[in-house]
């Protein structure tokens, strides 16, 4: 008889899965500390500076929160699709097109007042992003294409569209030939709340998160999504219009990512330029997985991951740790958390004595 067996639990861990998550993150930190040690950097000091840089001061906290906004919205969008087991890898492209849509409104109506321009930008960003999510959905249902590949490829197309506009028709004549649109008028900029550093975009995030939760938990369509996500055949048998559901879900997914693009262009950068693309769409996928597609956890995970990115910059500055280290930690966290997910459904039984937890 083998001394260690892996036995499926009667019931998956409920609240205790929180401890598993924390343990996993702790293990990833220990591993990261070890990597620092091997490199010659004092590990404890390194991890301390990482946390201090991410959350340790009012500025760091603000920076992490600000950086978490686009990640949160993209992740919300990705979660909508993932709940239906439709793998939307195209948040990056939907984000880009959302930014393009919002910019079109901002540049086409420079004289209009804010209460017309801003809703117009939001609408256009959601429509453009939603459209970009809708296309792969149609292809999936009508032509049985794989949405992972289609959404991924469409990311490149979207980014090239953005580049084409910014290098060409929308280029600022006063920019010495550099690719950027003119700066948006103040009527097209989502400003800060009062005199703080926080943009109103944070409020957008909270509202959209709440709408997502209500939509998923309390509406009929939300229920249909949950049912279809678990078992497509049973859902079709029950009469749920699966094809239309996929298209709706992908459109919503794209719209949310597009909204993130609008916020980035309007509030953070105040114009459209190629460097608006910062990989948020791809980070969103990691965040959605880590948070198990739950909007509250997505908020927490987005904030944590944004904090990680911010903290790594501090680590670079103070201890000259290379930039690649941030990517390593992110990967380690994802790996350990996913591995920790094993313990939610299984437990290790040591031969003879009682099992572990």
């Amino acid at each position: 008889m083998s001394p260690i067996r892996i036995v499926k639990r009667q019931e998956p861990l409920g609240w205790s899965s929180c401890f598993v998550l924390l343990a996993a993150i702790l293990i990833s930190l220990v591993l990261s500390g070890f990597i620092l040690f091997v490199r010659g950097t004092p590990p404890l000091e390194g991890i301390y500076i990482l946390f201090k840089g991410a959350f340790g001061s009012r500025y760091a906290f603000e920076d992490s929160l600000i950086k978490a906004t686009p990640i949160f919205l993209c992740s919300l969008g990705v979660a909508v699709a993932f709940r239906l087991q439709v793998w939307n890898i195209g948040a990056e492209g939907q984000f880009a097109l959302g930014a393009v849509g919002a910019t079109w409104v901002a540049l086409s109506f420079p004289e209009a007042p804010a209460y017309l321009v801003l809703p117009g930008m939001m609408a256009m960003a959601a429509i453009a992003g939603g459209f970009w999510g809708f296309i792969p959905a149609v292809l999936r249902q009508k032509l049985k294409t794989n949405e992972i590949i289609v959404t991924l490829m469409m990311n490149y197309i979207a980014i090239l569209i953005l580049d084409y506009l910014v290098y060409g028709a929308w280029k600022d004549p006063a920019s010495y030939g550099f690719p950027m649109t003119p700066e948006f008028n103040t009527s097209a900029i989502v400003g800060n709340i009062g005199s703080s550093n926080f943009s109103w975009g944070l409020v957008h995030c909270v509202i959209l998160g709440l709408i997502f939760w209500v939509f998923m938990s309390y509406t009929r369509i939300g229920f249909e999504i949950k049912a279809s996500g678990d078992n497509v055949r049973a859902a079709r048998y029950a009469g749920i219009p699966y094809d239309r559901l996929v298209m709706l879900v992908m459109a919503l997914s794209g719209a949310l990512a597009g909204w993130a693009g609008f916020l980035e262009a309007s509030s953070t950068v105040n114009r459209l330029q190629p460097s608006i693309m910062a990989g948020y769409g791809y980070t969103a996928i990691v965040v959605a997985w880590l948070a198990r597609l739950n909007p509250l956890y997505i908020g927490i995970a987005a904030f944590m991951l944004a904090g990680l990115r911010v903290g790594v910059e501090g680590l670079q500055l103070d201890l000259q740790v290379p930039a690649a280290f941030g990517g390593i930690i992110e990967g380690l966290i994802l790996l350990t958390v996913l591995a920790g997910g094993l313990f939610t459904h299984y437990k290790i039984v040591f031969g003879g004595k009682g099992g572990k937890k």
Partner: protein
Amino acid sequence: MIARGRRKTMRFTKMLAAALLSVGLCFSQAAAEDMKVGFVYVSPIGDAGWSYAHDQGRLAVDNMDGVSTSYVEAVAEGPDSERVMLNMARKGFDVIFATSFGYMDPMLKVAKQFPDGSFMHCSGFKTADNMGNYFGRMYQARYLSGMVAGAMTKSNTLGYVAAFPIPEVIRGINAFSLGAQAMNPDVTVRVVWTKTWYDPATEKEAAKSLLDVGADVIAQHQDSPGPQEAAQEKGVYSIGYNSDMSAFAPKAHLTAPIWNWGPFYVETVKQVKAGTWKAESSWPGLADGIVDLSPMSDMVPIAVQEKVMLKKDAIIGGEKIFVGPLKDQKGVVKVAAGSALSDGDMLGMTWFVQGVVGTTE
């Protein structure tokens, strides 16, 4: 068993406290004495290219007495860079060098919030009371490298792997082409855009596509040695950039237009320390030693090397590169005979000279 656990916790807490205390002491010690100079890089310093060259300059500053330096690498242009520079300023960095065009507006925002700091932006065009910009007349060194390429090509097709169609890159391509045409009036320069500053795989593929159309000298405005490797694998020549890339392609690498930021950075920091620094636009060139041509390989005939060195002396003596008559790809005269392009026109260059095959979009 419980007591042992608690003792372990106590010891850990003491160790942690000691660690934190020593960290705090370290920082307070450093801050009291040295002037802090910070650098922001757009790619990792191991890129053997643009950021590597800047970091070599930083090391020169680090050697100065009473100065400590630090850097953050791989900082994306846009809001990330603003956060990085804000943090540097908050941590008391007196001088900050931002080494990529996309850092311009973020640096402007930060400079406005920290009027006591000195901010220097590389390759841009905006200034403020406490923010200057600087660049090097790399096009002069590119002209010289073009001469070498033009002399060494047999197929009369030169390949140019370029990053973004911005004036700085276009200017370099034009200077390279003019230099090549000075040695060999029949050359054409084919341009391919990679839309990235640093991506070894993409750059190598772009170089391969140029080799496929018959280019037998590959030049680049990229930060990785990818194109050099592609050239060596095909058995043709290559021109590097940023630093001497011959270690990556010893059989292909002829020469490279390179940066030498050290003296400029040291001089700037000296001026800030002495209180004589002024926020302005600086554009030093070959004459100041900020750009140079790396040593030419033995594969380049002595006669060609001598011509190149003669031209280098002439440029250092004041000779200009973009002198008329110069026509663009459509044949429109952009620089009239007998006149030279002004700095402003060079900084905003968006057209290619004749002999260049490619678009500026």
